[in-house]
Structures are given as C-alpha cells and as structure tokens.
C-alpha cells in the first residue's frame, strides 16, 4: 500500500517529525520518565542490550508479512507455540546446550510450517480482515495447543520425562526450567565493555537474520511479495500467484517466530508452558509500531528503535508511576495501556489514511468520468 499522507509538507524537518511522530513522542515521554524512575544508566543499558538480544528475532519475523500486504501478523504466536513444542521434546530427549537449541528449532520447524500454511489458508479467505482474523486465529490455535499440551502429552504423545509431566501422569507442567540451555546462545560468545555484558553470539545471529531479510527482498519471491503488497489485482494480472505468495509470507513469518521464541526462552531460562506465548504478538507488534512502523511499511531500523523505546518504557513506567502518583500499580497498568494504545492509534491512523485515499480515488475517478463524458458530448 502506498504511504501517501500528510508527509507532503514542504519543510523536511516537519516532514521528518510527522512521519516519525510515534518514536519521537516516546523519546519525549522517556526524557521525563527515565530520571523520574531513578534507575542508573548502567542498569538500563544492560537491560536494553539483553532485551534487544532476546526480542529482536521475534520482532523481525513481523516484517515479511507487512511487505506482502498482510498487515501485522498477530499470528506469530503460532510460531511461538511451535517453538515451545520443540523445546518440550528437546527437554524430554535430554539434549542440552547449543545442539539442544538447534534440535528444538529443527523439531519446531515442520510444526511452524504446518501452522503457517493453515494460517495462510485462513487469511486468504479473509482478505481485507487479515489482522482481526490472525488475532482470533491465534487464540483458537492457543486452545488447540493447550488441549495438546494439557491432555495429549504424556498420554497420546509419548513424553516420558517425569520432570516435564504433571503429577497425574499426563499433561505438561506449568513451568519448566531451561537450565540445560539457559543462555547457551548468549554465553557462546559474549564480551564485557565497562560493566555491560554484550552477547555477541546472539547479535551475530540477529545480524545474519537482517542480512537474510535484506537479501530476501531482492529475490524474485521477495519482489513478488512486494507487488502483492502494493496491489493484489495488479500483481495477479502480472502472473503472480497471489494466494500462494501471501501464504508463503506467513509461513516464513511463523517459522522465524518459532526460532525467535526459542531464542527468547533460552535467555529467560524458564518456559511458562501455558503463558509464555500469550503476549508475544502484542508486545512484538507494539514494539514494531513504537519504532515508527505502520501497517503498510516496516523496516529493520523500526525493529531496533522500537524494542529499545518499548522496553525502556516498560521498565521505567512502574517506578515513574510510583514517584508521580504514589502507586507502582499505576505504572504497570500504564505500560499495558501504552502497549494496547499504541496499536490502537497506529491501526486507527492507518485505517483512516486508507479511507481518505479510497475516497480521493473515488472522487478522482468520478471527476475523470465526468470530464470524459463532457469531452465526448462536447467534441
């Protein structure tokens, strides 16, 4: 979708501010909130670097569907679930460390591909409503996931490890610790600069992913997706299999989310089997949007800026709320409000712009027809 908008202002500074309104707003907010919260710069720096390492992969997985015109893929939670299933098997088979992580990814991949195909199929039948549908689909598959994990594992699906199962013999425990792979990726290669520890291994992987995404946009498939994203009908007349391309974008996104969730969990060190994946979609999307992305356009800088700003707000809000209004709880609700609110505003702005565009097109088309008719009768 073309991003024509209020960025037609002549002054480049004004243009910059308008098209980057959201990140700028957050920077201003943080300028006040950070000192108020009382956290030291060292602590914040460390936290942000950790979170960047932990979350970037997941947020990057959102980029490709945006390119293909599918909007914000709330369905990355499907990939997260696939990753968690991979981890459960990895734990059950007793494989540890880096080989364990790779194995979990290997197991999760076919599951993620299948779920991605399902999601793609369903989203193709709901063209124009992809975002709501992917959100509800996420809830639905979550239900199936819970059914499988709570009843299937240990009974129909062979899981033997006592550490994983509930006392009653079937069903996976709520919280599984990942000591066996905890920070395996982080520790693989990490350096310390003046008290801040930087997990280069993870960042190397993220860099590789960025290069992959960059390269992908230049492949034929990538260009096809861009074309489908711009205009489905034009792409179809150009001979592109629109449905297949759209489904592929979702499959890729889901698989990347699978890996992203595994990377996320190996850093945290515990799986909350029933909850860990819950907010994956919301947080990743909120972060991306805070970074300045829109439903139609999302780039790699959006990812990193977004994660930084989002997580800074996340960390700082409760303390700042306490200083300002006397209750830390307010800060916590505030950050939930921010996450949802930013998505609401971005979606509303985008939808508004789209409506304005459609109306302008309609008006222009009417005027063109009128002019043509007049020409015809006049000439």
């Amino acid at each position, binding site marked *: 979708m073309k991003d024509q908008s209020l960025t037609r202002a002549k002054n480049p500074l004004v243009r910059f501010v308008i098209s980057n309104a959201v990140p700028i707003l957050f920077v201003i907010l943080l300028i006040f909130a950070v000192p108020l919260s009382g956290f030291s710069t060292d602590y914040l720096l460390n936290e942000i670097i950790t979170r960047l390492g932990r979350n970037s992969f997941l947020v990057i997985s959102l980029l490709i569907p945006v390119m293909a015109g599918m909007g914000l893929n709330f369905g990355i939670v499907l990939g997260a679930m696939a990753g968690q299933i991979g981890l459960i098997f990895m734990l059950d*088979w007793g494989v540890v*460390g880096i*080989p364990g992580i790779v*194995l979990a990814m*290997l197991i999760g991949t076919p599951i993620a591909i299948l779920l991605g195909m399902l999601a793609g199929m369903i989203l193709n039948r709901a063209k124009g409503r992809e975002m709501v549908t992917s959100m509800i689909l996420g809830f639905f598959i979550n239900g199936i996931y819970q059914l499988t994990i709570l009843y299937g594992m240990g009974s129909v699906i062979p899981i033997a*490890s006592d550490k994983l199962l509930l006392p009653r013999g079937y069903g996976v425990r709520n919280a599984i610790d990942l000591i*066996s792979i905890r920070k395996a990726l982080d520790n693989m290669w990490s350096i310390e600069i003046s008290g801040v520890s930087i997990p280069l291994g993870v960042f190397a992987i993220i860099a590789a992913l960025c290069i992959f995404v960059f390269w992908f946009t230049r492949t034929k498939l990538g260009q096809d997706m861009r074309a489908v994203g711009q205009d489905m009908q034009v792409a179809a007349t150009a001979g592109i299999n629109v449905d297949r391309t759209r489904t592929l974008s979702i499959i890729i996104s889901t698989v990347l989310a699978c890996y992203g969730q595994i990377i996320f969990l190996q850093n945290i060190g515990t799986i909350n089997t029933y909850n860990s994946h819950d907010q994956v979609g919301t947080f990743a999307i909120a972060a991306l949007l805070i970074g300045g992305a829109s439903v139609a356009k999302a780039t790699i800088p959006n990812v990193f800026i977004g994660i930084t700003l989002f997580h800074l707000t996340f960390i700082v809000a409760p303390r700042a709320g306490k200083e300002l209004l006397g209750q830390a709880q307010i800060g916590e609700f505030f950050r939930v409000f921010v996450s949802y609110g930013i998505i609401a505003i971005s979606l509303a702005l985008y939808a508004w712009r789209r409506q304005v565009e459609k109306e302008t097109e309609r008006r222009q088309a009417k005027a063109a027809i009128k002019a043509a008719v007049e020409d015809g009768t006049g000439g």
Partner: protein
Amino acid sequence: MGQEADRMRRNIIRVALVVVLVALGFGLYVLGKEHTIFVENKDIVVDGVEYKSANTINVIVDDIELEDVKKGKRKVAYSAGPWHRIKAVEVFPDGTTREIERKFTLSPNDTAVINLVALFEVEEGWLTIEQAER
C-alpha cells in the same frame, strides 16, 4: 517432458533435504544428549581380582570438577556428547599423589558408572555402561 523432469528434480531435492535434516537431527541428538556419569570410590572385583578402595580421589570429568570423592562414596556428573575424558588424582595418606587420565565413549542412551579404584589399576573393567532407565 521437460516439465516432468523438473518435477522429478524438485522432488528429489525435497527428499534429499528431508534426509539431510533428519540426519542433522540425529547428529544433534548424539552430540547434545546429556549423560549421567557416576563415579564411585568403592571396592570392586575385576576378573576375579578384588581391589579395595583406600584413599580419597579427586575427580574431573570433562570440565566438571567433582573434587574429592571419599572412600566408599559416589558422585555424579552430567555431561553431553559422545566423547568424554576423566582425570583422577588419588591422594595418599603421606601427601603424595598419583594421577591417571582416560577417555571413554558413550552412546546416546547410556548411563556410565566408573569405578575410580579400578580406573587406576586395570585397562578394562573400570567402566560399566547401563542402558538408559527412563
């Protein structure tokens, strides 16, 4: 004609890819499977000869320091992969020591029990492998 050959080729590539991935999976399993390795400082009979445990032995399995295993005691180390190394240092009452280092291989489902006394005395028989109990 040309199309069928293409389809054939694509399917072959797909099958090959799956085979490679499954093989990779196996490789990862073998490389990453964590083993339970028991070390014990107890009396043992090997080939009819009895060896008695006498002194405290300091043990390192791969890069896990088990430190002192006293006479009659058993400790456990968890280590992943097929290839392992154990280094033991026996401390005599008068303060002198003797040490020995041996290598051993484990299959994915093996649990190992190493008798430290036999480790010093015999070439074979210090390592007992149990099939995995789940």
